[in-house]
């Protein structure tokens, strides 16, 4: 009665915003930076992307604009944390609040207008969904098989060692933060341009926080992020779909499921750490720590 293929297509679409944002945050965290500003960068991308799509009439230029705006708004965070060595948690939260407020202010003229419709790509899903899926192997390859990815991971695992080897820790981290911003921006723009087709204040409604949770859930791997995004997106779609079909299941149980899964995964990770020699576990070793080159 519920077509599993149709359900899967709904899932792919629903999980795209959090997939983009979480992949971006994955790269940022692998570089050793904890950026809690995902929600702020997403909403900025949602507005900038929508405005760009509306004014140019081309949704793809909208996504380009969203990536640019996301990267730009992440830069103050990069300056604060990398040059002024301010606390990453506080700076990230500030970025979220700043982004939400800024988007609300500049979004006023965009209220009540409609974005140009996107032409569907293969299987009726638009191209951005496919781009998101492509980013998973691309980021996996970058992190695990490329030299640049190795340097980025080195910076994230032990910034002092990377510095001693002659790598520019700050530069790597700033590039990672900008990339994370661009990805979050695209994720946000997917909501405004593709899902809702309108700009409304606060429209990301907490997706950025889910993206942060997914990175932890993924154990800092790209395939893990995909699994996490599908789990969160899938459960949302499934519970709505079951309701529409009139199946009598307690909705609350399904809504709870992804969070429950996160807790179970975290417990499993920490249980494994107990028996492993590596003190820092699977999280990047220098995650959230300030780096200041003494020499």
């Amino acid at each position: 009665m519920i077509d599993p293929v149709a359900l899967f297509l709904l899932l792919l679409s629903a999980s795209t915003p959090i997939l983009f944002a979480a992949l971006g945050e994955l790269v940022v965290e692998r570089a050793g930076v904890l950026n809690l500003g995902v929600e702020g960068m997403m909403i900025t991308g949602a507005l900038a992307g929508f405005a760009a799509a509306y004014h140019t009439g081309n949704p793809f230029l909208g996504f380009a604009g969203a990536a640019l705006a996301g990267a730009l708004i992440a830069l103050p965070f990069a300056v604060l944390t990398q040059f002024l060595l301010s606390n990453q948690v506080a700076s990230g939260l500030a970025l979220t609040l700043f982004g939400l407020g800024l988007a609300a202010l500049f979004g006023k003229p965009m209220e009540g207008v409609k974005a140009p419709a996107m032409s569907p790509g293969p299987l009726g899903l638009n191209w951005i969904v496919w781009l998101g899926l492509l980013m998973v192997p691309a980021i996996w390859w970058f992190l695990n098989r490329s030299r640049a990815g190795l340097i980025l991971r080195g910076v994230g695992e032990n910034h002092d060692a990377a510095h001693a080897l002659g790598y520019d820790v700050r530069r790597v981290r700033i590039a990672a933060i900008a990339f994370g911003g661009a990805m979050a921006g695209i994720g946000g723009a997917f909501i405004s341009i593709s899902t809702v087709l309108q700009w409304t204040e606060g429209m990301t409604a907490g997706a950025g926080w889910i993206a942060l949770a997914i990175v932890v859930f993924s154990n800092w791997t790209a395939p893990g992020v995909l699994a996490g995004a599908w789990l969160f997106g899938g459960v949302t779609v499934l519970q709505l779909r079951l309701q529409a079909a009139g199946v009598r299941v307690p909705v609350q149980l399904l809504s709870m499921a992804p969070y429950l899964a996160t807790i179970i995964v975290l417990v499993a990770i920490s249980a494994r750490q107990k028996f492993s020699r590596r003190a820092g576990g699977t999280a990047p070793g220098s995650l959230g720590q300030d780096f200041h080159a003494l020499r």
Partner: protein
Amino acid sequence: MNRRQLIASVAALTTISLAAPTWAQDEPLKVGFIYVGPVGDGGWTYQHDQGRLAVEAEYGDRVETTFIESVPEGADAERAITQLALAGNKLIFTTSFGFMDPTINVAAKFPDIKFEHATGYKRAENVATYDARFYEGRAVIGTIAGRMTKSNKIGYIGSFPIPEVIQGINSSFIHARKVNPDVEMKVVWAYSWFDPAKEADAAAALLAEGVDVILQHTDSTAPLAKAQEAGAIGFGQASDMAAFAPTPRVSSIVDNWAPYYIKRVGQVLDGTWTSEATWAGIGDGEVVIGDITDAVPAEVKAEAEALRDRIGAGEYHPFTGPLNKADGSVWLAEGQTATDQDLSGMNFFVEGISAELPQ
């Protein structure tokens, strides 16, 4: 100044203003509003803010309004309402169902301040409640939905299973089935008043179920956007949502709070305000049916408008028997109409809706 002194001085100011009405004329009446969503939601909160602006336009310098937007329902609401009370507002509108208990709690601490809570049922000496008979509007768009559906499946995106929303589902279903006996209603609960992405997903789930008319009791335009993609139709909710006309938005239910807000602020200004429960509908101009577009055949439009006018004139009540509850038991006998008390506690679907109502 600590809080106690502040409260004391606020109280003192009130006494002075009561004792010396001529002096009080110079001081503008401060009116506060608490919104559940952002002003730019294009729906529910937007309409309340239009009401606030209408109050400013009506009374000019005699009033000073402030609002706090995107206040979550729950403990945080109490803090926000207290903040408005301490800021010297003499009349505070709290504009969502979930602000009910916080409003009552804060009102008990500020007996000199008048509160107005939207869509709730708890009142006090200084707390009035007001609501709109949305179900009257639902009857009209339910009629259009029943006539317009080709798949005979109508989808309804609910926010929370509370009486206000359940009335709307029942009313639209009753009137859709009246004009189309084969119609079925699919209900999806979003458990949010405003979450565009989730509302869009809910709409997509309904469309996948074969629904071709979507009704919504959530505040964003996302379901209309999804309906448009799939070639289905929908209705503007709370606000006109005219950006989606002529299709998918074929009509709308507009909440027009301005007359009520102007009236109540005026009563505070001239000292005649009392705590009461107001429940106004189409006849009072508080519920307005938005323009029915040309996507709707002329005879359906005429039928819907005739129903609207009969409800507005008080000739017809949308909940008129015979009506049974979903479990088959009799609710209203032939010709009997529902009382307001019945409606304000409505916690069941009427017969014919197969979806389960979460308790």
